[in-house]
């Protein structure tokens, strides 16, 4: 009966079994429906894009972690999930070297330079996207056409910017946007239905909290709704703002990136709402048409500030702790 072993262990002695790789696997599972829609629409182009992003992201991660003398943590699947997510917001026919450059940006600037997963102040996927968008704007707007009868020749927000609101109603009614098979743009902006299924999976499995997506969609709807109520012939409807472009993709998959989003519930709601409002502002008054990615990217800079909004501890009198100057 006497067995002397070194068995010191901190309590609790039970664990939920949750792990980083399981959360990342949930993210990958959530992205599968929309990836399948992408493969259906763009056939080999989509397969090529996804294959290059995932494989190069994994290779870059191994290379950089070896270079920085860190334990190689490819098995936590974060590179795979990031690569898949990046594939959803790039044009399917992008040249291969741009894709490899993008995954390098994603792993190096978005993760490893800050000390690995969890230390990054920005979403690596968005860093890669922003870098490519600024460096190669023409290539990033070169959209292929799916092999279907599509009247439109541009993504919804380009039509809104160049052709006006009337053409939107012709080319992109809300049902088309929701089903997403006849929408021009990256894979992640195609089927909103598939994205919502994936988002629901993330919320059910508690990989993300519902606060950020719901607050972001509410921010988009409220802010665009104000202008739509003022003049429905001049401004697009809130439903269009939610269903068109990458709003749902950004709300469920990009804004909820763990380390670049706040950790408290009030902070999450402020974060999501701000990102939503900023999305509409940039869509209306900036030259960018894919404003939602910029909006999330800019809002993640404010995350440290929003982390200061925290509920007071159990038994403290005030409901919220007001962030002080120090």
């Amino acid at each position: 009966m006497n067995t002397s072993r070194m068995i010191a262990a901190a309590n609790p002695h039970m664990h939920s079994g949750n792990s980083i790789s399981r959360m990342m696997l949930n993210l990958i599972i959530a992205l599968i429906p929309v990836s399948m829609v992408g493969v259906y629409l763009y056939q080999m182009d989509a397969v090529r894009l996804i294959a290059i992003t995932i494989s190069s992201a994994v290779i870059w991660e191994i290379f950089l972690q070896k270079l920085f003398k860190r334990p190689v943590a490819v098995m936590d699947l974060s590179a795979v999930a990031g690569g898949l997510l990046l594939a959803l917001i790039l044009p399917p026919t992008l040249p291969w070297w741009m894709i490899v450059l993008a995954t390098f940006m994603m792993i190096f600037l978005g993760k490893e330079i800050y000390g690995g997963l969890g230390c990054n102040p920005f979403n690596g996927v968005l860093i890669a996207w922003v870098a490519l968008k600024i460096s190669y704007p023409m290539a990033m707007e070169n959209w292929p056409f799916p092999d279907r009868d599509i009247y439109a020749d541009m993504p919804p927000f380009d039509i809104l910017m160049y052709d006006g609101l009337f053409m939107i109603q012709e080319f992109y009614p809300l049902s088309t946007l929701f089903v997403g098979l006849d929408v021009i743009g990256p894979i992640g902006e195609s089927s909103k239905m598939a994205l919502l299924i994936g988002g629901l999976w993330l919320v059910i499995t508690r990989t993300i909290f519902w606060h950020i997506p719901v607050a972001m969609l509410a921010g988009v709807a409220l802010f665009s709704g104000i202008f739509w109520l003022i003049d429905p012939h001049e401004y697009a409807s809130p439903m269009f703002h939610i269903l068109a472009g990458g709003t749902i993709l950004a709300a469920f998959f990009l804004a909820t990136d763990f380390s670049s989003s706040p950790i408290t519930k009030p902070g999450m709601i402020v974060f999501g709402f701000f990102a939503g409002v900023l999305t509409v502002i940039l869509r209306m008054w900036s030259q960018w048409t894919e404003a939602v990615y910029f909006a999330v990217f800019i809002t993640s800079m404010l995350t440290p500030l929003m982390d200061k909004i925290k509920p007071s501890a159990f038994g403290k009198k005030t409901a919220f702790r007001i962030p002080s100057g120090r």
Partner: protein
Amino acid sequence: MNSVSFKGGLKLPVIHTGADRSIISVPPGQEVIVPMKQDLGPECKPLVKKKQMVQAGEMIGESPLDHGACIHAPVSGKVTDVIRSFVHFSGKRMSAVIIAKDGPTNKSRRQDKDSFLDSLLYGGLVDYDKDTVPLAVKLDEAKLNHVDSLIVNAMDVEPFFSSRIRVMTEKIHDVLAGIKTIQEYLNIKQVYIVIDQQYSGLISDHQSRLLQDVTLVPLKYKYPQAIDYLLVKAILGKEVLCTIPCRDIMHSQDIDGLVISVDTLSAVGSKLVSTERVITVRDSAGKIHENFQVEIGTRFSEILEACSYELDPESRIVAGGPMSGQILADSSMPVTKDLQGIFILDKEHIVQNDPKTCIKCGLCVDVCPARLIPFMISGFVEKANYDQAQKFQLSSCFECGCCSYVCPSHIPLLHWIQFGKFEIFKQRSRL
């Protein structure tokens, strides 16, 4: 009455808890070890010498201060040794009395002292809770605070344990007598008994007729619901600031309502000296789930033998529950008053702590019932920045362990928080 009283917490999988298993009495073995410090009070001084004969119920340890609970011999017999360096499962070194059993273990009644609190102290009564303080200290504080409501806790703090609901159903007369005693002493107006919602069927009609004067509150089971603070919040609607300076150190609790567990009350009501304990024994696989009434000083191995449980050498024994217990090296540890139960971790359920970096997923913030930000606190403690950790209200932590349970990076958050509390306590006591 709202059944969910706090945000956060854990909905643990429902496993057979043995709540329908009646309490089995286990006779002590040939030799019992009685440690001299079984609560958070001061260590008792052994009153007996080697080769002395003791009677069951005889006082063998007296507290050096006037607010410590005394310790009594659980069996009649001969003192074979008084050792100085016994290591208790909490890691503390203390003296202990070893008694070889000789003759029957008849119970002896508590002596009536001139004050009620003294008779509790000399009867060796402690609050059988996560923080085991002498019951007299707790009642004294309650008297000073003019507490007018008593909350009887029939829910086990630890998940998968069921000793309290068994005490509630089997010793209801003792419990009611205990409630009455304390009610008279403190002028309590309202008595609530909280039980787990899933066990509310175990209270029979006859028993519920006995409980007419008290309010029976079924609460939904969520892991740290049975912590005193959360019970006060659930029943009285008040939030009391938690200020546990450090685990294993006696502290005052400024709780408006008095929370006492049923096993304490049944010990008060039985009018016997405190030498026995009702504990749950179960393992992580669910092969064994029993409730035992054991004498203080019985070794764990004897209890396991009594229920003919084969201990796998690869599995580990946890003194206390799965959430706040201590892993032991072997099964020779004796039962003490601060033991809630014995949990056996099977090989496949042993948590492999391989901490990775925090990914700031926010799960620990989500489950924290005290509304803290555990990963920030643990991060600051890890970097020995205790001032910042205190700004994040380190001392308000209930030490329930929900954060460590959910952490996907397997960071021992609770360990860091307890370590930080201890370091801050050390710094303060040095000043």
